[in-house]
């Protein structure tokens, strides 16, 4: 071992394609005085990784970009670039046949890339991320829209409903000519017209206990924009079982609520142990909702997703954000994991998806065999 006096501890981000070569870790710690020394240290610990970051001539191959604090090292001193304690390094492979980011992508995402909290490395993280939007409606619309604009690589849309004229007062993914079309198809067309770079996957089916564990595990993060309690409890439980972060939002009249559930740090059942009896808390169709409120809350959900992907800032985990549009007040209250929670508490009794129609005591809004998610 060197004496260590000049050794700097660096955090190295490992992207998805290389993670299996690095013990399935997203971040590695390594020491060295220069970029080359840090890479050597990584290579000796993870030989498989070394084969990827060095070619036969022991040089970094052209299809690999190394970033130090979001700056590509070719523009610095290459392998000789000195590193400092606490620096963040990233090893980013080119995507098939191109640079890590194409010139068009650098241009399109430039307002994100120039921010030090995002940079080219963060942009790559966004482009690798897979986010499921439950409900292509008031909340799912703006959430999906901003995630697509940000270049989130894969956006899944789960909805079985068709566009109704009464949706257009708030649901920005659909336009007048879309009335009668499937919401998933209308949503996909809109998102791709904003950003053809994004892969939009549609799940044109009611989300149920039968398919939730097939669909949700395909994604990294779930956004809840459902319009009924049955789907909300289903999505909560399925996200927990799949180990996925759930970015929750809900709205009624002039009120909005948003939070983030990370498995082990509280869930929807910790917040609301049981749904109201049918009819006691009206839905938007019965009571109404301010259209622009959906834009605020859906955007907040998109922000929380982006922060989760980039691993920046303080998320709404363990906090519930309340927005009252009439008083124009945002407030934050504490959200605790309930040790008595039947899903994620100490003596959990729910170990698989249950009969949500029975639990919620109400027929599914979508009909006898479907859950309406809009």
């Amino acid at each position, binding site marked *: 071992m060197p004496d260590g006096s000049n050794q700097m501890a660096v955090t190295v981000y490992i992207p998805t394609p290389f993670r299996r070569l690095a013990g399935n870790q997203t971040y590695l710690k390594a020491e060295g005085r220069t970029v080359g020394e840090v890479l050597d240290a990584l290579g000796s610990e993870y030989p498989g990784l070394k084969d990827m970051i060095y070619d036969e001539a022991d040089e970094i191959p052209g299809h690999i970009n190394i970033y130090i604090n979001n700056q590509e090292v070719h523009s610095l001193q290459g392998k000789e670039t000195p590193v400092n304690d606490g620096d963040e390094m990233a090893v980013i492979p080119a995507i098939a046949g191109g640079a890590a980011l194409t010139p068009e992508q650098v241009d399109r995402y430039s307002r994100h890339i120039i921010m030090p909290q995002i940079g080219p490395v963060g942009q790559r993280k966004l482009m690798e991320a897979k986010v499921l939007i*439950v*409900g292509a*409606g*008031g*909340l*799912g619309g703006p959430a999906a829209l901003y995630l697509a604009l940000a270049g989130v690589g894969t956006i899944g849309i789960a909805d079985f409903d068709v566009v109704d004229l009464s949706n257009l007062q708030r649901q920005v993914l659909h336009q007048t000519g879309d009335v009668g079309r499937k919401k998933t198809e209308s949503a996909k067309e809109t998102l791709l017209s904003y950003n053809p770079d994004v892969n939009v996957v549609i799940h044109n089916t009611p989300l149920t206990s039968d398919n939730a564990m097939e669909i949700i595990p395909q994604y990294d993060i779930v956004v*809840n*924009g*459902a*319009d*009924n*309690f049955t789907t*909300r409890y289903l999505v909560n439980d399925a996200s927990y079982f799949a180990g996925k972060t759930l970015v929750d*939002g*809900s*709205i*009624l*009249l*002039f*009120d*909005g*609520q948003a939070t983030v559930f990370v498995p082990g740090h509280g869930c929807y059942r910790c*917040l*609301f*142990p*049981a*749904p*109201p009896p049918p009819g*006691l*808390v*009206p*839905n*938007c169709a019965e*009571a109404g*909702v301010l259209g622009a409120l959906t834009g605020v809350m859906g955007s907040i959900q998109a922000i929380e997703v982006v922060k989760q992907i980039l691993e920046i800032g303080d998320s709404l985990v363990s906090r519930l954000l*309340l927005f*009252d549009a*009439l*008083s124009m007040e945002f*407030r*934050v*209250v*504490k*959200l*605790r994991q*309930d040790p008595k929670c039947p899903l994620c508490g100490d003596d959990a009794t729910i170990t698989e998806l249950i009969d949500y129609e029975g639990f919620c005591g109400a027929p599914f809004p979508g009909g006898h065999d479907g859950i309406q*998610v*809009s």
Partner: protein
Amino acid sequence: MAIEVKLTANLQKLAGGARSVQSEGATVAEVLEDLERRHPGLRDMVVADGQIHRFVNIYLNDEDVRFLGQLNTPLKEGDVLSVLPALAGG
């Protein structure tokens, strides 16, 4: 003990449209009793059989009273209670 109680829009119709109502009480339960006198029907939206509905949370300032003393949570002058039912809309 003067306590401010904030209501979500869905509950405001039971309080004459007020977003925030003044109340009196030394505990959450006493405030709810006082509210019921002033705005009949409001308490039933929040409690049944001496328990807070499981789809409604009451916050004392920023803390869920379920993790404090439930309906027996003591209050002090100037406290703010927020009554928050689950919302399903998306």
